[in-house]
């Protein structure tokens, strides 16, 4: 029996799809004149979800001469155009949803021609990373100068660890590239009402093809249905693929911060900071100018307290988060207000080396404080008959290493390669055999990254005892060994 997924039957205000120019192709020579209005329109790839992973996949397919002939569609519930970053957006305010793009992700975006469509003035590369233990103060600093490779350092080697970019900037760049390439049927502000398997008619047997009923009344049959539709992926549910994991009972608090200066290294040498507290890591990541973005993983109760604070108290709490002891912080979270004064007083009695800490937060951008629950999820497999999952639909990761969006970009690039090989060798791109290589390429790698981030979270949740000593020893040992550090940094940069 074909599984049927009833999705929210939300009628969009404007059901007319933004029809893109269609690229006539060899793979769509087949047109079946059917008198029945309900006959689905046949597509090679239907991507549900217009986030960074889905858009990267479509741009990758359209940018390659091998796959640009595929007939593809994008279905996105939101109004894509409305959420775009204006081309002339001023560099004063930043969205609170930012990501740290690895050089590997950026290279892929460059290869598919999307990176040049990004608003470069709103992207901040950073060259150094300071990570320390909130309990023992053991510290590791990452930068390409101390992370010596075994041979002499080549001048061509990158100095950038990663690029801070607003998700809206990434999405807008990909949309800009897709507009330039054309050939994608965009169904924006359109919901998927149902996904069910097609039928066996006289001419065609679509009984293995997913057929999507859209809120605009259209019906699409997909040779390959790509679920880029987030953690609660309806596509994954349709495919009957289970996703396993757990909730960390932690929330990630995000905010855009105003800083007193551009940072200790000035505008040309930006530094990211992360301090592991027993309740979760607090991270401050540099944005252009005197701005930074905050990701503070903490208990849901503390997250609620932080969100309720006045801007000056919130700023004081972030400064405290990088400076004061876990005991001080515990007390500060019990206060309903007045953190600014309390922190100022306590800081006088806490010796700190300011050069090793982020410069002070002076204010928080109005309306930028938000929180989301932290989860770890991994789908049992990324592929099924005529189904592939990318991004959060396949995996949800703890944000402590900033790998979530990068994993999605890696998925998209790998799926483009798999589809490209299938097209070159005449395989049905939706067949499980053709999709096998995608699962093989990504599953183990993502699983390892999910595991590492999960273990790090657990390791640093411990407040006392021998584990604190051991982890501090480990951190200091890695810090002292240039080549080992280089290895970790290469891995973090997306492997070289």
């Amino acid at each position, binding site marked *: 029996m074909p599984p049927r997924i009833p999705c929210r039957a939300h009628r969009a205000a404007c059901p007319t799809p933004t029809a893109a120019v269609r690229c006539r192709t060899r793979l769509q020579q*087949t047109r079946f004149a059917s008198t029945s209005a309900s006959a689905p329109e046949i597509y090679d790839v239907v991507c549900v979800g217009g986030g960074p992973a889905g858009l990267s996949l479509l741009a990758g397919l359209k940018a390659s001469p091998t796959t640009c002939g595929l007939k593809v569609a994008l279905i996105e519930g939101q109004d894509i155009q409305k959420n775009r970053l204006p081309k002339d957006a001023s560099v004063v305010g930043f969205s609170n949803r930012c990501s740290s793009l690895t050089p590997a992700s950026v290279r892929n975006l460059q290869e598919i021609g999307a990176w040049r469509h990004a608003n470069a003035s709103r992207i901040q590369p950073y060259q150094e990373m300071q990570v320390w233990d909130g309990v023992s103060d053991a510290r590791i600093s990452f930068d390409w100068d101390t992370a010596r490779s075994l041979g002499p350092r080549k001048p061509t080697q990158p100095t950038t660890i990663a690029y801070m970019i607003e998700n809206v900037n990434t999405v807008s760049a990909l949309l800009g590239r897709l507009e330039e390439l054309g050939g994608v049927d965009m169904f924006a502000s359109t919901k998927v009402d149902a996904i069910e398997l097609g039928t066996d008619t006289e001419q*065609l047997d679509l009984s293995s093809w997913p057929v999507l009923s859209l809120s605009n009344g259209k019906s699409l049959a997909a040779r390959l249905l790509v679920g880029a539709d987030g953690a609660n992926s309806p596509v994954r549910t349709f495919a009957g693929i289970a996703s396993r994991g757990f909730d960390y009972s932690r929330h990630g608090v995000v905010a855009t911060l105003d800083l007193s200066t551009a940072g200790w290294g000035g505008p040309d040498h930006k530094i990211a900071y992360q301090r592991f507290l027993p309740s979760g890591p607090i991270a401050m990541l540099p944005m252009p100018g005197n701005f930074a973005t905050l990701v503070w993983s903490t208990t849901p109760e503390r997250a609620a307290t932080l969100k309720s604070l006045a801007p000056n108290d919130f700023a004081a709490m972030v400064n405290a988060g990088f400076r004061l002891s876990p005991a001080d912080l515990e007390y500060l979270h019990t206060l309903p207000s007045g953190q600014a004064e309390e922190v100022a007083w306590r800081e006088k009695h806490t010796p700190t080396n300011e050069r090793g800490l982020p410069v002070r937060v002076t204010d928080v951008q109005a309306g930028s404080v938000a929180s989301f629950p932290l989860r770890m999820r991994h789908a049992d497999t990324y592929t099924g008959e005529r189904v592939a999952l990318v991004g959060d639909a396949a995996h949800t990761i703890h944000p402590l290493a900033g790998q979530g969006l990068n994993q999605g970009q890696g998925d998209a690039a790998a799926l483009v390669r798999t589809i490209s090989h299938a097209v*070159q060798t005449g395989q049905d791109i939706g067949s499980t055999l053709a999709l096998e290589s995608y699962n093989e390429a990504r599953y183990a790698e993502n699983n390892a990254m999910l595991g590492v981030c999960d273990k790090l979270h657990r390791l640093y949740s411990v407040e006392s005892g021998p584990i604190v000593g051991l982890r501090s020893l480990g951190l200091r040992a890695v810090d002292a060994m240039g080549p080992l550090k280089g290895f970790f940094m290469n891995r973090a940069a997306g492997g070289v």
Partner: protein
Amino acid sequence: MKPSNSLRAIRPIQRHLTAPSYRPTSARPVLRQAPLFASATTSASPIRFSSTASSPQKEHPKSTVDPTEVSHFNALASSWWDPVGPSRLLHLMNPLRHTFISRCRAASSSASPNTNLRYLDIGCGGGIFAESAARLAHTASVTAIDPTPEVLKIAEAHKRRDPTLAAPGKLTYINSSIEDLPQPQTPQEGYDIVSLFEVLEHVNAPGPFLEHIMPHVKPGGWLVLSTISRTWTSWLVTNVMAEDVLGIVPKGTHDWAKYVNETELRDWFQGKPGWGDLKTLGVMYVPGFGWKEVTGSEGWGNYFFAVRRAE
């Protein structure tokens, strides 16, 4: 390994050793003298093409089709397209076939066009290669033939699952042996690519069989095939390991005595005027890694072979 299995596997070898035509003094005597590579006129005993009730009961004295092979593949028909079924190794090998063909075509300095190619796939089975060839951008049409009616039913049913293949004239299946397929009126009406994948090891008389196929190749076109060398290694790998021990190939799929060596094919085609550009590629299945190119393995295992008809 059960004793009965090894006995069954050894039978074809004994048959060879006791064959009256076997002359141990010659370097490569077996197929030269044996009826396998005899000319069409001195072909093997008549074979009735009557393996199943649904097939036409007709006498075909010249057919190279082995009726026991036809019934073997009839039994396998239903699982042909199961990605983890008995035909998995063939599915996995399929992309490599296209890689080999592309390489052959790229290497030939020919004026022949790169689009609107016409394919003839002989022994198409469930259509693994035929479907994939029909999906390629440069393909005009694929004609695919097989003497086994049950697998062709599977092929037809599977074809309906892909709108690209269902386009009129794109992919045509014919239940026929090569002997019954009408020959082209003029050489130019031949096919750009005639493929014969994993078939040669299943026919009774490769020589006459190839003679029937050659007129279908257009001048400038290619005859591309894959098969297995008849060596101790291939016997051990394909008959004993793959079928009996690992069970990754259905039992009874291979009869080692029918295997044809790359050197035999090479010598045979070198004696044919108007045929050249011989190309080979040895491939090996490595469990866990898939099919891999192994230089030199054409001498002892699975290999691709291509020969071009002069323009």
